[in-house]
């Protein structure tokens, strides 16, 4: 404790000398610069992140195709000439693809070289040829030029993602394969087109056959479950706490609890789902219904907090006016308060859903991380979701999955931006200031 005594003292004026002021202003400018620097770092990292993903991912949306004359040889497809769909479906289209390549490169004769040659085409080429034959049986017996998707190694090469400069041993394509591709390109047979597979297929071990549709549908199914559970429960909870709850220990506990739940690590919700929904209730693993349940529990606090904020923003005068004409407390809330707060509630819900859509960790716990080729059809089918698909592909060693991963991230981000855009639109359009 300082002991102060009053003594006559020299008259002291503030030091407003130019030197000192200059120093203070220099400190001011430095401080301001730190602020700008911090913003620049944050914005720069964001730009770097988005830029690197766009750069890595844009090429996932197109693919390399090789235009080849394909002879739909009846001897291979339908030797008996019955045109029975079952027969056409069961034919060996891989041979047809191989034959058309061999016809283009008649010099290639050794077994190993021919195999290398066939590796230029995508793994699913036979399925594509089959689809053509099934759709148009009249094509059998004719030779048609078909643009066939290249294998991912060729695709990567043509997109410039694999360097020709490295030695043969260090790349996935041999010198011979490079030479063949050069020849095809010189003949103008190599073209690029929209990668429809990416939007219409489920997961695959082969990058060129992998698509995001399965994960996208899985995400939609999961989100539907989440929305159906979280929205009504959260609104009911918020309405109760904000409008009706008595102020006592129990409601205090609920409040603290909700605030805490909002900050519980998401992976803990995954453990909950694993132990309770899978272990105790025996719900199916990898199913959107379980994912939706877990994410609903996780999203609840977010929506509750947003809903309470927008309920709180409705001025008491509205409630008093409604009570004044003899409405019961429930009528006041359902007829006046909730409708007025609805834009805010919806905005909060969409933001909560967007966060749930990007969530990965808890879904790993409940098995939505499985390798699933089929596009899910129902809430109990095994499925995965977009962010988990990103995680799975990011783990795959094939070069082609890097662009697929980034492509899936772009799809995910675009979806999120759309959702947030809707939320912003709702807020701008309907929110009123009291």
């Amino acid at each position, binding site marked *: 404790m300082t002991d102060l005594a009053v003594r006559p003292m020299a008259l002291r004026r503030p030091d407003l000398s130019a030197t000192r002021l200059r120093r203070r202003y220099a400190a001011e400018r430095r401080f301001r610069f730190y602020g700008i620097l911090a913003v620049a770092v944050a914005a720069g990292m964001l730009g770097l992140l988005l830029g690197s993903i766009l750069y890595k991912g844009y090429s996932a949306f197109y693919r390399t195709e090789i235009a080849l004359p394909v002879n739909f040889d009846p001897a291979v497809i339908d030797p008996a000439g019955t045109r029975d769909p079952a027969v056409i479906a069961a034919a060996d289209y891989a041979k047809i693809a191989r034959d058309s390549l061999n016809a283009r490169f008649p010099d290639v004769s050794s077994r190993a070289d021919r195999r290398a040659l066939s590796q230029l085409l995508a793994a699913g080429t036979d399925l594509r040829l089959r689809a053509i034959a099934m759709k148009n049986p009249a094509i059998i017996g004719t030779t048609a030029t078909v643009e066939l998707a290249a294998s991912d190694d060729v695709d990567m090469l043509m997109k410039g993602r694999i360097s020709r400069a490295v030695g043969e041993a260090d790349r996935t394509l041999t010198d011979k394969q490079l030479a063949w591709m050069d020849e095809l390109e010189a003949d103008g047979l190599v073209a690029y087109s929209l990668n429809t597979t990416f939007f219409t297929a489920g997961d695959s071990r082969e990058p060129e056959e992998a698509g995001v549709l399965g994960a996208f549908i899985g995400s939609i199914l999961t989100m539907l479950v989440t929305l159906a559970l979280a929205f009504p429960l959260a609104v009911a909870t918020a309405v109760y706490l904000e409008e009706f709850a008595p102020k006592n220990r129990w409601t205090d506990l609920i409040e603290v609890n909700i605030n805490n*739940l909002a900050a519980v690590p998401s992976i803990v919700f995954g453990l909950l789902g694993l132990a*309770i929904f899978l272990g105790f209730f025996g719900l199916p693993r990898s199913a959107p219904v379980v994912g939706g349940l877990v994410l609903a529990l996780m999203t609840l606090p977010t929506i509750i907090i947003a809903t309470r904020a927008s309920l709180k923003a409705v001025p008491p005068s509205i409630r008093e006016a409604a009570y004044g004409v003899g409405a019961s407390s429930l009528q006041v809330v359902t007829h006046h308060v909730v409708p007025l707060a609805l834009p805010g509630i919806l905005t909060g819900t969409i933001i909560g859903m967007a966060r749930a859509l990007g969530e990965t*960790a808890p879904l790993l716990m409940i098995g939505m991380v499985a390798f699933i080729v089929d596009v899910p059809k129902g809430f109990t089918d095994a499925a995965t979701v977009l962010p988990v698909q990103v995680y799975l592909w990011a783990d795959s060693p094939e070069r082609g999955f890097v662009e697929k991963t980034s492509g899936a991230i772009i799809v995910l981000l675009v979806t999120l931006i759309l959702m947030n855009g809707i939320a912003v639109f709702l807020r701008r359009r309907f929110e009123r200031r009291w």
Partner: protein
Amino acid sequence: MPNVTFLVATLLLATVAFVIGRRRAVEVGGPRRRDLHSLPSYYGLYVALWCGIPALAVGALWMMFEPGIVDSLVLDALPAGMVPADPHQVSFLQTAIRRLANAAVIPSDADPALIAAAAHYNSLQQTASLALAAVLLAVGIVGLVWARSHISPAMRARNRVEKLIMIALFVCSCLSVLTTIAIVLSLIFESIRFFQAVPITDFLFGLEWSPQTAMRADQVGSSGAFGAVPLFLGTALITAISIVVAVPIGLFVAIYLADYASPRARAVVKPLLEILAGIPTVVFGFFAALTVAPFLRGLGGSIGLDVASESALAAGVVMGIMIVPFVSSLSDDVMNAVPQSLRDGSAALGATKSETIRQVVVPAALPGIVGGVLLAVSRAIGETMIVVMAAGLAANLTVNPLEAVTTVTVQIATLLVGDQEFDSPKTLAAFALGLLLFCVTLVLNLVALHVVRKYREKYD
């Protein structure tokens, strides 16, 4: 989706009940309805609730138990010897049967026993559906008739309906508490089982973590293998790096936005931060693993430092960037809560803006900022995807940010993903780690929320 069908059917039944109840109320209310206590639609709602809620409750119970019963009936009907002993295998078998039962075309190579089981499954399902329909209808109609018979002008339908709705709202609000209880119980039960196999002191103070080895050698609880200290250290290291990155950047961003930025700059920077906050963590993980980590490795290599390809630094830095918007929005909130009169008071004494911020605003907002930082720490500790993708699995006991470390969340994720044998200490360890994670973040959250609330009360 038979469940959805039943739900819709029940709702339809309740709608019918509503119409019947309403009509009944109009009948007993007489021509001018003045004698009715409530509006007729409340009587309708009353009847609908009495019809719908019991039916829904019965339906929910049914759905909960039906799959288990059907599954066990199907398994019992399988030829002896086909049912494996391992419960995990059993669940695979069940999936196979269900898939066959739902398949449009039965593959030619399927096991005939399984095909028979699938057919059996389908017939059981059909019977169950019919039975459920009958039960639902019966329950609904009983409720409807009972409630309708009680309608009289003196009955306070509105009050009864509102009472029911209020109870429903209350039950909803208790769900969050139930969630917490469920989390705690599920974590505690599995952890207790884990600690029966591995002593808790070994877990908390052991210096070696290698759950895989313990499994291969089939030494349940071999001492030392479940020592979680390397995980704690790794988590602390990455959290520390991320906080060192996030707090200065986030704080200065908040200061810039609150006191320096022009409205136009704010209109640009704020959405940028919101975008940053909205990016899924798995994207940050990908960014850390494929862009930042190789960059740091290259950078380290060029100045003669050996940086691991999965370094703690890369994961920590990217996590820090992820937390920046979190810190900045919380600090922004608390600094905005500092009254303008204090800034005016300081400015009127001839202080520059930065002097005001450093010596008045930040000290005044400090409790709130500390609370925000604690929340950020809690978030960093619990963050999973970035570390799973960028920090690796090596349980190194090190504080060198250039080496690979592993964290609690990474281990939870890796222990539980892939082949699972419930009951092995390996999977149970994940729950013990989860319990620890939950407790630590719980304490951090509670302290932080308390600090922030006290702070807000001060200036409100």
